[in-house]
Structure formats: structure tokens, C-alpha cells
């Protein structure tokens, strides 16, 4: 028995955290949040953008001044915070999903082609990846949104066009290693076309890897959208985005800290759930890690 056996015999807290325990906790939490987002119209007690200036800045239920119809209080425009929090989940998850679809499509295609065909195609795409990595994305995203318009579609498009790099890098590496495997050479020798091999054989083999990248990138997108909205150049009011809510609550931070504590905690929970789930997936589907 070599040292290798010894190392994996001892359970590490990191391994437990990430492996099955992590994936379970993360997955459950994530599922709950997704459900909340999907059932928002049913769950939210009020219209999230309905203002009531006579009821501004009411505190949440644990305060004496709290009011029963507004469990989590109201913001500076009298809008129900609980409803805004619930709908905020929609925004975070919605933008996250939308961006992933775009960036995933771009990145996976580029990575597949670069990894499988190699040669000058690979050189060009790798160069594109390096260039993309050199860009200060927060700034570029800000600039693009500021100049391109305030709609949700623009936001998703811009982020999608910027965040494809990890997809590309990972699928490129996976395609490179798969292309030399014998079953691929076997398929070529019986005359299967390259396109067919690419999409019907290589891509399905990368499912697990791609899933892991998806979960990691979703966390990134959620945080990025929150930051952009916080800076005023992401999701625009009155749409409830947790990042935007933090920015809006900033002025009242001294006396009504829940205005930023609540959406911030929600962001933490969501990102934590996604990270745990993604890490857990990576452990379950990949080689033994520490």
C-alpha cells in the first residue's frame, strides 16, 4: 500500500464539505430558492413595485414598530420588502440563467472547436480567450450597459458576451484530452464525420465538467449583476434586484440597517448554495480531491 491509499483513507473536512454533504445542502437550498422564485406571484403578499408613501421605512417583524401586513418592513418608497425580496430571487436567478445560456453557448462552441481541431483555429481562439481575460470586465460591462441601453436584454447580452471564458477554457481542455482517446479514433476510422463526432460523441462526454462550470459561473454572474445593479448600471428601478435594493437602502443605513442586511444575506445564501452545489458536483464527478 502506498501513501496514496493513506491520503484518501483519511476523510478531510474539505472533502466532506464539498462532497456529498456539500452538494446536498447546497442543492436543497438552491432548490428552495428556485421554488420561491418560480412561485413568486403566489408567495409575495404585495405587488413589489407598488408604492405607499404613507408607510415608508417600516421595520421588519422583530421590531416594535413593525406592522403585520409587512413582515419584512417597507423601503423608502413604502414598497413591501418581503415581496421585493421574493421577486429579487427571480431577477438574480433569471439573469443568472440567461447569461449562462448565452455565455455557455459561446464558450462551449469556441472551446470545442479549439480543442478538437487544434492548429491555427486553436491559436486564434486561445488568443481571443487571452484578450478577453485582459479586459477589466466590470468596467467594460458598465460601459457597454451605459452606452447600450438600460434594458434587461442588454444586460444579459453584454454579460453573456463577456463571461464565456471559463466555459471555453474548460471545454477546450476536455476536448483536447478526449480527441486523442481511442474510441474517437475508432469512430474516425469508420468514417464518422467530424461534426458528428464533435456534437454527438465529445460533447456528451463533457456533461459533468460543463455542469460544474455552470454552477461556478452562475455564482459569478449573480454577484456581478448585484454589483452592477448596486452601481446603478445593472437592473434598473423599479425592478427589485437585491443589489439594487442594497444601493437604494444605502442612505438609510444608519437607522434602518435591515434594508441592506436582508438583501445582502439573501445574496450570500444564494451564492453559498450555488458554490456548495457546484463544489459538491465537482467532487462527485471528478477525480479524488483534497
Amino acid at each position: 500500500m502506498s501513501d496514496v491509499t493513506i491520503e484518501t483513507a483519511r476523510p478531510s473536512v474539505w472533502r466532506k464539505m464539498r462532497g456529498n454533504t456539500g452538494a446536498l445542502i447546497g442543492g436543497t437550498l438552491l432548490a428552495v430558492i428556485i421554488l420561491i422564485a418560480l412561485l413568486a406571484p403566489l408567495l409575495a403578499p404585495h405587488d413589489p413595485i407598488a408604492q405607499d408613501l404613507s408607510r415608508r421605512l417600516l421595520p421588519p417583524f422583530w421590531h416594535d414598530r413593525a406592522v403585520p401586513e409587512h413582515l419584512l418592513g417597507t423601503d423608502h418608497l413604502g414598497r413591501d420588502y418581503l415581496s421585493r425580496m421574493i421577486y429579487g430571487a427571480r431577477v438574480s436567478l433569471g439573469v443568472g440563467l440567461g447569461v449562462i445560456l448565452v455565455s455557455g453557448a459561446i464558450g462551449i462552441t469556441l472551446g470545442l472547436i479549439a480543442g478538437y481541431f487544434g492548429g491555427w483555429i486553436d491559436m486564434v481562439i486561445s488568443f481571443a480567450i487571452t484578450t478577453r481575460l485582459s479586459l477589466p470586465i466590470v468596467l467594460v460591462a458598465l460601459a457597454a450597459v451605459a452606452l447600450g441601453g438600460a434594458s434587461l436584454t442588454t444586460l444579459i447580452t453584454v454579460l453573456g458576451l463577456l463571461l464565456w471564458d471559463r466555459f471555453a477554457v474548460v471545454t477546450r481542455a476536455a476536448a483536447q484530452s478526449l480527441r486523442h482517446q481511442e474510441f474517437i479514433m475508432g469512430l474516425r476510422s469508420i468514417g464518422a464525420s467530424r461534426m458528428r463526432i464533435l456534437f454527438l460523441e465529445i460533447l456528451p462526454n463533457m456533461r459533468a465538467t460543463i455542469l460544474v462550470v455552470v454552477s461556478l459561473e452562475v455564482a459569478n454572474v449573480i454577484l456581478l449583476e448585484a454589483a452592477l445593479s448596486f452601481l446603478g448600471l445593472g437592473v434598473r428601478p423599479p425592478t427589485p434586484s437585491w443589489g439594487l435594493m442594497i444601493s437604494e437602502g444605502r442612505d438609510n443605513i444608519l437607522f434602518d440597517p435591515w434594508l441592506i442586511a436582508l438583501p445582502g444575506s439573501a445574496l450570500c445564501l444564494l451564492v453559498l448554495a450555488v458554490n456548495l452545489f457546484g463544489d459538491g458536483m465537482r467532487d462527485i464527478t471528478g477525480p479524488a480531491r483534497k
Partner: protein
Amino acid sequence: MTDMMLDIRNLKVSIPTDRGMLNAVRGVDLQIAEGETLCLVGESGCGKSLTATSIMGLLPRYAKVTSDRFDMAGQDLTTKTDAKLAKLRGRDVAMIFQDPTSALNPTLTIGRQLTEGVMRHENLTRKEADVRAIEMLDRVGIANPAARLTQYPHGFSGGQRQRIMIASALMGRPKLLIADEPTTALDVTIQAQILTLLGQLQADLGLSLLLITHDLGVVAAIANDVAVMYAGRIVERAPAADLFAAPRHPYTKGLLAAIPVPGVTARGSALPAIPGRVPGLIGTMAGCAFRDRCTIAGPECAVDPVPRVSAGGAQFIECAKASEVAA
């Protein structure tokens, strides 16, 4: 027996795992005389590498290691404090490893790696240590040693790296060298060269050699005595010639029977394999660990302790049916 270079009785190594205590080494006795070569043989997972590593005291701290007696190079290490063992490492006992690619630090020159041990132990200056390093490199067959001291490991071939590792181990002029699968990662032709080198060095320097391997060919080439290990215990020990000519333990017989012999084994015939699998080592097990796969096992084989039948000197087998297998 005080002229033993290495004398260990009842060595046990246990490792805590998710599923319970893994008893990897379950009571091993090893004696090696001065100048002797003992090969410790067994399949993967039998505990031979762990035995070697525990002799050096290099197991992680959560591994439990106990022994009734542990004498090495004339020192009593039974109480086995880390400090005592650490003093001997690199001086009286040295170890070489299986993979020459990873056994040398890629970011240090080989000169540095060769000299750092002795510079500390014997308080040599860099120059004095370099002189000895050049001598060692020459001994192991590296050409132009003086110039190569400042080179990095990646500039050498696999076989050369193995030689450098041997040189490094011998720098402290140890009396006992432990070699953990030293030829497994090498080409067959290089294997032969390394084995010859080891034999030569042993003769020149009067080394005792404990060589771990799963390759019976290596055993045949270099061993004085052979100890066969199965599931954490040594089931047979005999001089090499006797072992190959007349194996006694059923496991040893099974191992040797599986080796095809040109001119003897009929073409196209199936090689006899030992049926079944190695038992899991979690928890304890009563009696002989081989009994589920043994052709001559009987009810007495499930009884602890499995009797050890000596055949003179260090030779013995552990078998309840010793009388039936005596050649």
C-alpha cells in the same frame, strides 16, 4: 540476536478510515543480518510498502504504529520516539523510492540534493560534501559527475535519476538501505542495470538491503532471503533458492505456479490463477487470512494464532497445515 542489522517483532500498523480501523500490517517480524539482502514480496495492498515506510518512521501522525521490539543498526528503538528515529534517518538507514521522476526535487540542483543530508549530519562544508557527492555519482555510474552537480533533475533520464537517488541515499554511508520498488517504474533493460548496481554497491559497502517488490524476477536476481507477505502478515520466509525450488506455503505455491515457464508451460493453456480476492483489512480477522482461497484449508485454519513452523535459521512458514505442505 544482536548482530542483526534490523530486528523487528510484531510490527502493527493501523490507519483510521471512514469505515473503521484499517489494520494494514498485522504483526510482522523482520530480521536482516549484516550484509544480507532480504526481499519483501507480495501483491499490491499486502502492506509491504507500509512496513518499509514505518521502519523509517515516515508515516503520517494519525497512523498507529506499534511493535514489541525494534532494533536497528544497534539502537533500541522500541520506544520509538520521533527524535530517535530522525537521528538515524539518512545516516544509518536510508530509503530509495519507486518513481525516479518524482523522487528528486525539480527545483533544486542534484548537487544540492545530494549534499544537504550529510552537510547537516556530519557538519561537512560544501566543498567536502561535493567531493563525496562526485565520488558517489561516479560509483553509481553517472558520467562526468563534477559538471553535472549543478544540473537539475529534468536533465537526466529515468535510469540516471534512479542512480542519482541511490547515490543520494548512500551519501551518509548507511548500514541499511530500504528500497521500495526501485525498479518498477523502469524499462526492463534499465531494471537489470540498477539491480546489478545495487548488488555491487552492497558488496563494496557491506550494506544490508531490504528490497520491497511485487516482481518475482527481481527477487530471483538479487535476494538472499525472501519473505512473502499476504494481507498484512508474512506467511513464508526462506532463502531465495529454496523458495523457488520448493515453495511451502499454499500462497507462495499459487504465486509461483502462475508464472509461465518457456518450454514447460503448454502453449495456449490457461495460467493457473488463485481464485478469490484479498480480504478487506478493516477490523480484525481470526486465523489465516488466506483460508478462503486456499486449496487445503480446514477448520483449524480459522483459529488464532496461526502456528509458525520454523525450518531452521530464519526460515519459516505460517500455516496450520504445515505438516501437509512440508516439502
